[in-house]
């Protein structure tokens, strides 16, 4: 039970911790501005996760049993668009819009990743034998997520290359978006496509590094054609559009 709780925390919470780190690394904003976004996103996410958790059983039966998948895909799309907006706006010095897009992105990804976690706790709430293991597992899980995020932040700071953080942010969002495709395939709204390669024997999805890379850059040991296509499109758009906008609308000295 202890290990299971830790693994669940790593699977569900690590992507959000990594996103916070990447946003800190790519942002030109002052840390205070970003902290306001993080606090707001934290409060709204708690409320959103609570509301989604309460309505999840009803939602799972709606839209011909596709309700949960559709909600998750919509949230992933909202998260992606918000990050795209944030990346385009961060060079234009529009603090209010930057705050809004940053908060929205964090809230969307946190709600998508964290909405099944409360059900795990609820499923074991009457088993007092497991209570201690769940509490310790949760603390360990948060500790691992936090230390991984800090380690990534320090590594990116030591490298002093914001380009690496930008590439990682694009890969993170591309991975999350491509992950949404599996949800649509799960409910048969999109057809399965052929698997392009299989690196399972070298680096399995279930291994520690595989899970970390899965959360950070959307690593999939055996991706299919649709996954790779969505990944490339989402990555390219997030990488190219902000630089295109910056070139079309260069910031004048006075606006700085």
């Amino acid at each position, binding site marked *: 039970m202890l290990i*299971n709780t830790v693994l*669940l925390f790593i699977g569900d919470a690590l992507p959000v911790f990594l996103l916070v780190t990447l946003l800190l690394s790519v942002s030109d904003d002052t840390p205070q501005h970003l902290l306001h976004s993080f606090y707001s996103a934290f409060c709204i996410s708690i409320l959103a996760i609570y509301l989604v958790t309460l309505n*999840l*059983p009803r939602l*799972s*039966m709606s*839209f*011909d*049993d596709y309700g*949960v998948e559709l909600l998750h895909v919509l949230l992933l799309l909202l998260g992606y668009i918000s990050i795209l907006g944030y990346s385009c706006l961060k060079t234009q010095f529009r603090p209010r819009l930057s705050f809004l897009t940053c908060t929205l992105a964090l809230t969307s990804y946190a709600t998508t990743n964290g909405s*099944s976690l409360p*059900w*795990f706790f*609820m*499923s*074991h709430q009457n088993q007092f034998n497991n209570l201690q293991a769940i509490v310790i597992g949760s603390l360990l899980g948060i500790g691992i997520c936090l230390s991984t995020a800090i380690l990534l932040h320090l590594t990116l700071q030591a490298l002093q290359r914001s380009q690496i953080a930008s590439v990682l942010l694009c890969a993170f969002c591309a991975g999350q978006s491509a992950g949404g495709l*599996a949800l649509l*395939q*799960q*409910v*048969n*709204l999109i057809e*399965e496509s052929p*698997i392009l390669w299989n690196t399972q024997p070298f680096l*399995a*999805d*279930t291994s520690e590094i595989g899970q970390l890379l899965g959360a950070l850059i959307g690593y*999939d040991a055996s991706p299919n054609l649709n996954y790779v296509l969505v990944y490339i499109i989402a990555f390219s758009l997030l990488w190219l559009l902000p630089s295109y906008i910056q070139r079309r609308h260069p910031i004048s000295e006075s606006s700085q």
Partner: protein
Amino acid sequence: MHKYLQGSLLLGLLSLVTTQCYALPELVLEIRDHLFFPSQLNVPADKKLRLTIINHDNTPEEFDSFDLNREKVIFANSQTRIFIGPLNPGEYAFFGEFNPSTARGKIIVVNHTDDQNAN
């Protein structure tokens, strides 16, 4: 009027998808006392299948499979369905994420010539 048209189109699309879904072969997987029944499912290769998961327990469970790339919460005393395949021959493990020590199973995909015993 425009909204009614949009609604009708969406309903039509959903009906089309639903009709296609119900035409697919179905597999049934049950959860009792945090165990999957049957724990091993034989299915034919290169066929799309509808997997109905019925949870008889009073607690929720999450069907999870890295091999199949599927993840779905099944609430207490309820059922859900997901779609799998077409799959290549081989073994595809799945587990209950909320009770992984007990709820475990696998889907064995066999070639058409060997699928006499497939469900």
